[in-house]
């Protein structure tokens, strides 16, 4: 365990001195309110303030409203955040899988006009299962443009195997370790990600079990992990604590905290 540095090694300095050296890119953020609980400081100004305080360089966001009810409203909010953040906030495009005819026009608007970086899917907030054919236009678009799609859940390992193999030029990220991994569950989605060349795992999540992060790095390899915090759904410093102060090497930390996602979004 290396978190001794949290309280002793840098006394007199700033916590952001510890974190900023990694040029952290947070690949999993949001904007806006959520129906089930209070989210203070949920606008882009609040996000930027948290990033400054914790030494995070960039964050890629979608809006909770865009995932759940009104994708155009949400995408416009993300576009405003991109414009006003001087490149520090990146954007996920959202769609409504039930408005099939609108999916491609909206993705074109997002990527051709609104400077979006990746696509976010969320089957439970969309209320549309991960296996639904309604998502096919999204996969085709991402494949054609070699884009990243992050999904709250790809459903089964086999679903991801099928999609990632068929749309092999797209890049697929499974959020939340595949579901609050406690270091013990044998999840097929993790096996699928390990097998596939174009699939990765995001670290965001509330369940930080002792030793689980180190185990997953060992199991998957540091090249397969993408740093995410879920800010402001979750406090940004939660996952910073889990990853920056974990018992893995500095080289592994740099990959997870920054270079893995940077390469994904800059390799078109």
């Amino acid at each position, binding site marked *: *365990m290396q*978190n*001794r540095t*949290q*309280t*002793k090694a*840098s*006394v*007199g*300095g*700033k*916590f*952001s001195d510890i974190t900023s050296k990694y040029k952290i890119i947070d690949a999993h953020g949001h904007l806006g309110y959520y129906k*089930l*609980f*209070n*989210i*203070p*400081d*949920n606008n882009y100004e*609040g996000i930027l303030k*948290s990033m400054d*305080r*914790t030494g995070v360089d960039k964050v890629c966001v979608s809006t909770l409203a865009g995932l759940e009810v009104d994708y155009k409203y949400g995408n416009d909010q993300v576009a405003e955040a991109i414009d006003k953040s001087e490149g520090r906030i990146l954007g996920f495009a959202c769609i409504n899988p039930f408005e099939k005819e609108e999916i491609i026009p909206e993705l074109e608007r997002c990527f051709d006009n609104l400077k979006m970086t990746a696509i976010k899917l969320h089957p439970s907030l969309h209320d549309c299962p991960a296996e639904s054919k309604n998502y096919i236009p999204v996969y085709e678009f991402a494949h054609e443009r070699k884009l990243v799609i992050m999904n709250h859940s790809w459903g089964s390992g086999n679903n991801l195997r099928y999609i990632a193999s068929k749309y092999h030029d797209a890049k697929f990220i499974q959020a939340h370790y595949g579901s*609050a991994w*406690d*270091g*013990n569950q044998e999840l097929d989605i993790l096996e699928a990600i390990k097998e596939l060349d174009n699939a990765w795992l995001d670290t965001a999540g*509330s*369940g*930080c*079990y*002792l*030793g*689980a*992060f180190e185990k997953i790095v060992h199991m998957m390899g540091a090249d397969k992990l993408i740093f995410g915090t879920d*800010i*402001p*759904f*979750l*406090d*940004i*410093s*939660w*996952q*910073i*604590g*889990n990853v*920056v*102060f*974990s018992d893995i090497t500095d080289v592994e930390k740099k990959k997870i905290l920054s270079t893995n996602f940077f390469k994904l979004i800059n390799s078109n």
Partner: protein
Amino acid sequence: MNTIAPTEFIDCNCMLGQWKKNVESCFYTADDLISFINKASISKCLVFGSLAKYSEIQTGNNILINAIKDNERLIPCAIAMPHHSGEFPHPKEFYRYLANNNIRAVRIFPTFHGVSLYTWLWNDLFTILESAKIPLFIDFSLKHWSEEINWEQIKNICENFPLLPIILIRMSLKADRYIYYLMQNMKNLYIETSYYLVNNGIEKLVKSFGAEKLIFGTGIPVYNPNPSITMLNFSDINENERQMIAGGNLMKLLEEVKFDAKQDTN
């Protein structure tokens, strides 16, 4: 702001003994635990015993006391439940047990032990704990923020035992819509921070109610202490407030416990 100061972390949420799901990480002995907290820069722990939680309460309490005896960095926390079924000592007897062993904190598991927080069920125990101001840690065994708890029962307990310090363990995202009301109106309610993931949540609570009502905890060895330590370190609060949450508030509560000799001999 955010300048690192030598904060002293005192963890109020720590378990000693075997935990079946993570045999590599659990603390079998006091030395195991001390070795871990040394690396984690935690100076002291309020500890309960795993046997007391998972199986035999009083045997587990006794094993814990013996295991950490004479260790100034490990502070015992006894687990309790209602006595009516004969499984657990009568509150008066339990009180003597606490006093004789200088145990200044009690933890209950209403969900895990299947005993809801009905005032009538816990009245005898809580009355006697309140008489000595023994802090009561209530652990609903929440694994995920989406789980619900019975806030009406918490409000009733706070109202009926106003001098009993009540600390809610692992409060999380869904707590805010209740705790702002409750903390405004119930002076004896405290929040443990190990799973309080609300965005900038610590600083918001401090701004509204002061730093006195937050108690630092980690949940080791089940949970990783790094996220909860980092969250407190990064919170936009002053160093005095940070130290109060990190350990000062807990120590103050423990120091305020007053065992009454009369109660002891009743």
